[in-house]
């Protein structure tokens, strides 16, 4: 019973394929199989995007002591439908000086890689669209294409704010790609594979009262935190949202977009956020594995989406808390703080691998994580006068 519920979508796909085999010629069956794997991804994640926009607005509202959307539908949960209709019926403006082809292609070029990366994410047991041996590599290679799309949007708009935003975005995404990938390299080292499916399988055992997830090791914890920060910056979300920076450069690279193209930018932003969250779950949080051995009767895909929602809530929470950084602060943070820590973390993972398991390994590795963090933090803060700002006239 539990197994059939766990594999319900896999069984459903096989059954549908068997039905199709009657009417479709055999040469077309692989295509049908691919389509049957893709359509759920194309339906589920944009739906999740729609729900997340409402949840985010409601959550941010509560954080700021207000209601948030509560008019459309029960508790405002149909707000996304109203927003979607609005985006569809709005006039689609293209600036006269814009490079029309590139201007049109940019949002598409942003959404496509955001959707492509889901192909390698294992959403549940036996539920990865493709089990690529170099899945992780594919994820980062395709994910990096979004930088091109962002710059296409900024360049083709012929707008100085758009160009500024695009330049900031490219600088930021290139800078944070390095700690992002370095923090995942530890996992690759420990699991010995680039395949997300195998990485999840490597975390499937339960030792003591904690599952063997990579986040519950010193190097894994440090890697997870670095990964989260870099993922936040990759997704251009607050506090790393200077490419958009409403108060300085209005909306950055998508300033000249309106109507549904504008909505596509948001769709792509959230899709890449979910994808990178899903990757974080796959690498550090045990993928679709249940947190306790006794909870394994709950379907694996449920655990994946539960963890995904938890990470999304964390991202919304940080967005509601932290103010936007300055460009120089952002770059300093990436190159002077996150890059050294990510490199040291590689060493920590190696030490963890070669020391015999036991308490000494824990002590040494914890020291290797906490020590550089404290020292680097103190070093970067030294000579800086960080105190409460005094206003001469406003108070």
């Amino acid at each position, binding site marked *: 019973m539990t197994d059939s519920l766990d594999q319900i979508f896999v069984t459903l796909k096989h059954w549908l394929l068997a039905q199709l085999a009657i009417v479709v010629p055999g040469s077309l069956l692989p295509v049908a199989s691919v389509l049957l794997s893709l359509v759920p991804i194309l339906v589920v994640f944009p739906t999740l995007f729609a729900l997340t926009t409402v949840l985010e607005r409601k*959550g941010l509202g*509560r*954080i*700021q*002591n*207000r*209601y948030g959307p509560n008019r459309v539908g029960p508790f405002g949960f149909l707000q996304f439908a109203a927003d979607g209709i609005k985006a569809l019926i709005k006039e689609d403006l293209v600036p006269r000086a814009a490079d029309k082809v590139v201007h049109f292609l940019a949002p598409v070029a942003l959404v496509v890689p955001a959707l492509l990366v889901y192909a390698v994410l294992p959403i549940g047991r036996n539920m990865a669209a493709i089990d690529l041996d170099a899945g992780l590599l594919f994820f980062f290679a395709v994910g990096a294409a979004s930088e091109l799309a962002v710059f296409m949007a900024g360049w083709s708009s012929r707008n100085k704010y758009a160009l500024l935003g695009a330049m900031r975005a490219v600088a930021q995404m290139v800078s944070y790609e390095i700690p992002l990938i370095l923090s995942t390299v530890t996992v690759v080292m420990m699991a010995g594979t680039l395949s997300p499916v195998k990485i999840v399988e490597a975390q499937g055992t339960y030792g003591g009262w904690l599952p063997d997830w990579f986040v519950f090791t010193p190097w894994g914890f440090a890697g997870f935190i670095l990964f989260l920060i870099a993922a936040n910056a990759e997704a251009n979300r607050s506090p790393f949202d200077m490419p958009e920076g409403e108060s300085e450069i209005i909306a950055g690279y998508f300033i000249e977009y309106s109507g549904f193209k504008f909505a596509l930018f948001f769709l792509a932003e959230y899709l890449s956020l979910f994808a990178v969250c899903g990757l974080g779950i796959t690498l550090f949080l045990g993928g679709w594995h249940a947190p306790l051995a006794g909870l394994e009767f709950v379907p694996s895909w449920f655990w994946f989406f539960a963890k995904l929602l938890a990470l999304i809530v964390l991202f919304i*929470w*940080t967005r*509601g*808390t*932290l103010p936007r950084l300055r460009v120089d602060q952002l770059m300093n943070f990436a190159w002077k703080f996150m890059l050294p820590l990510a490199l040291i973390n590689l060493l920590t993972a190696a030490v963890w691998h070669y020391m015999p398991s036991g308490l000494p390994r824990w002590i040494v590795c914890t020291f290797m994580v906490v020590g550089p*963090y*404290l020292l*680097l*933090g*103190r070093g*970067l*803060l030294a000579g800086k006068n960080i105190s409460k700002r005094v206003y001469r006239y406003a108070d």
Partner: protein
Amino acid sequence: MLGEGIIKGMAETARNFLGSYVSDERLTTVQYPEERLPMPENARQFPFLVFDGNDPMAGLRCVGCQICEKECPPKCIYIVKSKDKRLDYKRQMQLYPATFDIDLSVCMSCQICVEVCPFEAIKMDTEFELSTTDRFGGLMVNKQQLAKPNEHYRKIHPTDAAVSDAALAVEVAKAQAKAKADAEAKAKAAVIATPVVTQPVAAT
């Protein structure tokens, strides 16, 4: 320590998030069309014309003096004087406004028309839901729509209305005393002019 401030900030926002579900004091939003805050007494939005009695057009205090029209900074008032005269609230023959229009889209709610009116005839209303589907005719408010009874004024601005009523009572009393004095003087003059009449006309 690095990162301490972030933890503190996250705790603060979490407190806000959870607190907004349990404490009404945190959630200060008034959901406007369903919930309303009571209006402060000095609220003002758009002028109206005060009338006495039951007939709005006959009881208008306005005498069409056009002071408000001239003083209005954005020039949103348009008045046409009447050709004939009628009795005003002081029982004196006065002109009245044949046309009195205010352009709602131009009015800036400054209350200068109220300050300059010597007849307590124009006052500020508190009604603020004035939107209309007709942006030409609907925004030009005419005499019939502007006329509102003095009771309405007493209801929305009780303090100001008391002052206004007292000032009017003084005016009316003064006018009546003057009328009486005039009548007496006229009677006296009549007595001097015609000594044949032995008994003077009784003043009312």
